[in-house]
């Protein structure tokens, strides 16, 4: 076992000593899906999580994960302390995006436990680099309640990033364990259905599950942890960073502003059959495309079920409005390269697909970026006219 039990007793001692009376004890909560498992299955997940990650008071730095815990885990402790001060109100003790303030917010704070983060500089499907997370904490997310923590010293930002990665790994590990047990038939509803509808014996099902937990679960858990660890390593690998293969195209050599030709090309791509931007973002960029009006299926449901509300939903199950591109507010950063990356790799955890390397060339992406950056400065939006002579050209930040 490569478990290094926790390094942190100090906080616990301090908290006990201070004796904060009525304040509720900070504790990691189980994911909804975990609580829907049969007793023995849930117990197995709880035990794994406790052994490998500990409690908020007694953190475990499991070296399976490629995190910078510091020599004796002090990074994790610092990160935890800062997280508890700055982040937990919205993101919750467990990083489930369900802190006490969360219910009042729209959009909902990120639930880290899916292991997905929307705004990254990494290729399609990959997790964020440390830099991406640090940038988000530093800059905040415009158009949301995520504020900027730019005043924190770099070392503190880094510690928070490390702790968020740790929380995300913990949550994703939990989800993978649950998926394994659900696959083995450990879901309580599933068991009831098999007993009541298919006439199977409850004892036999539970016996089978107990055998699996005793024999194979350890190996399955190790595989799950390996998958999570690999994905965090891959995210920070240099070959997975998106760098445009050409400098920003379509700029006037003299003024440095996008040329009319480039804006035309961008507009044409925007409405084209090959990019289909307007199906979601609407012809005028208002985020009101036809796909926002229909009912969508809930992924991972067999048989298929639909969401109660129409409109696109993200992987967290929240209604997801395609960005209104006329507002000039860009959640993942407003630099041209940020928009380039959004188009190149898509937005993780949403329907926004990756266009880079498949449907669009890097040059085409730049024209599209030029056009999108111009949209907020069009006088009449959603005119949906070709921008023949845009009155204000983009500065692009």
């Amino acid at each position: 076992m490569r478990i290094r039990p926790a390094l942190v007793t100090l906080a616990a001692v301090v908290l006990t000593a201070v004796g904060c009376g009525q304040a509720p004890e900070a504790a990691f909560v189980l994911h909804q899906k975990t609580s829907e498992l049969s007793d023995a299955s849930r117990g197995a997940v709880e035990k794994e999580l406790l052994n490998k990650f500990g409690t908020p008071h007694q953190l475990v730095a499991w070296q399976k994960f490629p995190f910078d815990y510091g020599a004796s885990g002090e990074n994790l402790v610092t990160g935890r302390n800062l997280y508890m001060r700055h982040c937990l109100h919205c993101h919750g003790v467990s990083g489930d995006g369900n802190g006490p303030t969360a219910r009042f917010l729209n959009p909902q704070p990120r639930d880290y436990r899916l292991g997905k983060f929307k705004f990254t500089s990494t290729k399609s499907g990959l997790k964020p680099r440390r830099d991406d997370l640090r940038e988000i904490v530093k800059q905040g997310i415009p158009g949301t309640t995520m504020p900027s923590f730019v005043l924190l010293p770099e070392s503190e930002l880094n510690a928070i990033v490390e702790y968020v990665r740790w929380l995300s790994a913990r949550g994703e590990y939990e989800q993978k364990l649950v998926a394994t047990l659900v696959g083995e038939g450990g879901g309580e509803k599933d068991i009831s259905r098999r007993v009541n509808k298919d006439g199977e014996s409850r004892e036999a099902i539970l016996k089978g599950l107990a055998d699996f937990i005793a024999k194979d679960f350890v190996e399955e858990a190790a595989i799950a942890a390996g998958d999570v660890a690999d994905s965090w390593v891959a995210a920070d690998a240099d070959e997975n960073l998106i760098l445009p293969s050409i400098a920003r195209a379509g700029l006037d050599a003299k003024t440095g502003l996008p040329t009319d030709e480039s804006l035309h090309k961008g507009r044409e791509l925007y409405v084209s059959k090959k990019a289909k931007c307007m199906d979601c973002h609407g012809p005028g960029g208002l985020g009101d495309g036809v796909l926002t009006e229909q009912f969508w299926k809930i992924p991972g449901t067999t048989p298929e079920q639909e969401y109660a509300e129409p409109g696109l939903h993200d992987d967290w199950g929240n209604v997801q409005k395609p960005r209104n591109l006329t507002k000039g507010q860009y959640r993942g950063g407003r630099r041209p390269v940020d928009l380039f990356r959004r188009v190149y790799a898509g937005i993780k955890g949403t329907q926004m697909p990756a266009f880079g390397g498949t449907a669009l060339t890097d040059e085409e992406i730049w024209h599209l970026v030029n056009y999108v950056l111009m949209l907020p400065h069009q006088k009449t939006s959603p005119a949906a006219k070709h921008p023949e002579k845009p009155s204000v050209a983009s500065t692009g930040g």
Partner: protein
Amino acid sequence: MNTNESNESSGWLLTAVSCGGLLVIGAAWLVTPAGANGAAVTSARQVTILADQVTSAVVSTEPSKPAKGTGNFTGIVTLGGAALDLKPKVKKGDLTAKDAAVCAMDDVPDESLVVDKSTKGIANVFVYLDKAPAGKKYDTPKEPAVFDQKGCRFLPHGLIARVNQPVLVKSQDNIAHNTHTNPIRNTGFNQAIKPVESIGIKLLYDKPERLPVKVVCDLHTWMTAYHLVLDHPFGAMTNAKGEFEIKDLPPGKYEFIIWQESIGYVDRKFAVEITADKVTDKKIAVPAAKFAK
């Protein structure tokens, strides 16, 4: 388009007759799943119609012999009860359909339950081993698998890929698609596919999956398909008649997963004993009540 289809169909028929009626199954996991899947499961609807004709032409089907010292597992998955009447997801010529010029060129059938009229066999059922027989490693097929799109429909509807075997995502449609997966173990894939993508965008699964991965297109939300990723060759998908064949299994006792997209597990642990140089044949009936919504 019509000419095209009939060409394809007759090509299929030839293949069918020439290999004696036993089509998809063996091929689904053989060294070249790509062509095999791509060709044979081109259109389950067409296949269903054609299969009737084939039945009359081909009198009996000789199961293929297992390699020396191994055994084959064959069988048929049938529906016990009346088949559901499923409406097409997009009707031919429906101008209100999204991107009708491309997507309503032909019916897009509802493939959530495809039943053959004569055999009652259910198509596109996955029969496979969760894990490779203990201690064995199997080479990755060199040929990529092909996953195509035509008339706003994925072809084939179900595909078995091996770990690290590239799946080439193609499109014959003159409109963009996006191919979107959300697997449990592998990295998610959500790539825009440009119109008439004939070379194919590489989709790679580098880890096996326990259950088939659902594939969707968010631009045309009726489009669905399933990819099963295995690190061994012992998996098959039922053909249009509901038949499957898994070849060259080392002798021993196995528990197969049988999975169908509308109901999930047909059987979690279907016990089969394989004897050397023998074909083990099983009939698996799924009660129609299971499909009731």
